[in-house]
């Protein structure tokens, strides 16, 4: 493979027998063979670039591109103090996604313009959590993770509270920023947008990163809790 390598040493098999003229031809053919190896190596690298680019395409995509604002419905759909299941069509779909493109989420209307929109996926391993209004708990059927009504971890294997979608209220409708399956890694990768910096600061100042206390009436974007 190494193009700078000198001619094969004389002790190589088959180099001793041929006559002088043949020997010259042989060493030329060996050189050409090595040249062909180098050429094929180069072609292989050129070929590998588009193949790897195609293969790694989904992983190299900027995740911020995948989230967009989705309307969940008019505010009147969400009575104060209740937590309801809402389905939305994922903004990024293919035409052969079928039902898998429909994503559910839990909308908790705290009061006024204060909401919490939780992902359906348990923070443990992504199973669908169910809301029990009477005991005010989200329960996961897979490994028994439990969360309080504000999404914070109550018990079980999850390390953290439920994932929260950023929301805003526009023209009397509740909108969330969604598009990507929430996982621990997606949460880590998400950089808060400009609109979220203020909310972050408020939360940090309040000293609680976990729950949206719901006292302020301002529409605001709740970042995914730490």
């Amino acid at each position, binding site marked *: 493979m190494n193009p700078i390598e000198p001619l094969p040493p004389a002790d190589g098999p088959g180099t001793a027998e041929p006559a002088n003229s043949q020997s010259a031809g042989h060493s030329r053919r060996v050189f050409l063979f090595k040249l062909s190896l180098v050429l094929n190596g180069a072609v292989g690298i050129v070929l590998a670039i588009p193949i790897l680019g195609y*293969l*790694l395409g*989904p*992983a*190299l*995509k900027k*995740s911020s591109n*995948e989230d967009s604002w989705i309307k969940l419905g008019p505010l009147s759909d969400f009575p104060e103090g209740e937590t309801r*299941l809402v*389905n939305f069509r*994922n903004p*990024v*779909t*293919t035409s*052969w*996604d*079928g*039902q*898998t*493109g*429909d*994503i*559910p989420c839990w909308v908790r209307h705290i009061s006024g313009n204060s909401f919490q929109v939780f992902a*359906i*996926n348990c923070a*443990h*391993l*992504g*199973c*669908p*959590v*169910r809301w*029990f209004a*009477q*005991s*005010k*708990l989200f*329960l996961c*059927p*897979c*490994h*028994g993770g*439990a969360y*309080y*009504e504000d999404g914070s971890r*109550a*018990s*079980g*294997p*999850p*390390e953290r509270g439920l994932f929260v979608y950023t929301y805003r209220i526009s023209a009397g409708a509740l909108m969330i920023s969604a*598009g*990507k*399956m929430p*996982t*621990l*890694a*997606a949460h*880590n*990768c998400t950089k808060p947008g400009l609109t979220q910096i203020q909310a972050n600061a408020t939360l940090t100042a309040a000293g609680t990163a976990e729950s949206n206390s719901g006292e302020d009436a301002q529409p605001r974007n709740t970042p995914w809790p730490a």
Partner: protein
Amino acid sequence: MASLKQRSIDVYNWFERRLGLGAPTIEAAEHEVPSNTSSWWYVFGSAATVILLLQIVTGILLALVYAPTASQAWGSLEFLDHSVKLGWFLRAMHGWGSDFMVAIVLIHLAQVFLFGAYKFPRELTWIVGVFLLLLTLGMAFTGQVLRFDQDAYWGLGIGASIVSRVPFVGGPLVDLMLGGPIIAGPTLSRFFALHVFVIPGILLGLVGLHLWMVLRLGINDWPMPGRLVSKKTYIQEYHDLAKKTGIPFVPDAAWKDAIFAAAILLAIMACAVWFGPFGPTGQPDPTIIETAPKPDFAFLWIYAVLAYLPPSLETPVLFIAPILVIGAMLLLPLVSGEGEKHWSRRPVAVLSIAVIAVTLGAFTRLGMYTPWSPVMNAWTSDPIPALDLKDRTPLEREGALVLQNKQCRNCHSIGGAGGMRGPALDTIASRMTEDQIIRQVLQGGGNMPAYGNALNPSETTALVHFLLTLRGNLSPAIDASRKMVLSSEQSTPPTSPRPSLPDGR
């Protein structure tokens, strides 16, 4: 007649002159093996190969109908089950074949481990075998995804959630696994490619290598206690043994393989006819959240382990344990390539197999009835036993209602009905005092959520009063320290013990 026979030989020779495959094949089939290897213990590898062929054939037949798109896959499985003649049987054969494959491969692994077959000169055969095991499990998992139902959808969610925990590159890895931002069309397509092209291709190549090495190095001779493997002498000893006691593999040893393979195929067919195909369960629609996803049999033990690991240990164990286990399996023949082969002189090996088998079995059993999962409908479906309500005060009966309405039964059983996540409440008052019960209900702890926000004071009082009646025939729990405080406060010691519980008297 003779001319017909001659003609057949001529036809054979015509091909043989051009192919040259007949002679080496016959030679390989008839190669001499030590007579002690003609054993019913030596049939699992060939059985696994036969099941692999069955899986390839049934898999191709299923692919004639299966539609590998997220919107159509589930429907095409239903179509196979109900509208294609014998489609259900082919699905059942492929599904049961997969379970048998995993089981036979594991038995094969345990057998060659206990017989010391991984020792010199068959180290690489074992190492390739470890990869074959991983590929077999990969086929089982990707196959479960292709059965694109609720379990498959949420199984992918579990897979993505596990992958997302990989340090630094978790996010891109999830995208790579799902092929997009969510579990959807591209996800199923790439698992189809893995299950149908990528993994089978590698699998077949490695099976070829595995078999080639078995032929080249000879089948492992039956281990004898005290006959040690030494790299200097083993090859010569093996050749002497094969020369002295050698029998042609075909037919003298192979008939046992053939009979066992036939029995296994019959067993798969019997299971397929009797139990039918696996699912599909509900449609892969994430908006149907009334589901309790579960993996296939081979992965139930992982599902159970994930329920029992403490949260802080989960991520490290998920990524360090597999590396250690697989690494140990790969290094095993290189570290202990010589020495004793017989199981009776290798207590650690026997013990390891026993411990691993019992562990996997226990976790699989737990995975079958998931005691850690809340029973989501227990609060409406499981009534309080009538006996527990007999002769109770109105307050206590109100407490029983609170117990039902607040979904306590989803995690706690009474009279054997209800969830098993928390302790059964039948005799709770014999173990906990009133104060302890109040504290536990309101503040939670020990894996129980706090109900302070979900119960108002009167509900709490009623609930606790009902719980205090639940003690079977046992005496109520007594707060010993409280008794001491009370007795020291009074100048005259009380003559009779004062239970701190209000219920009895």
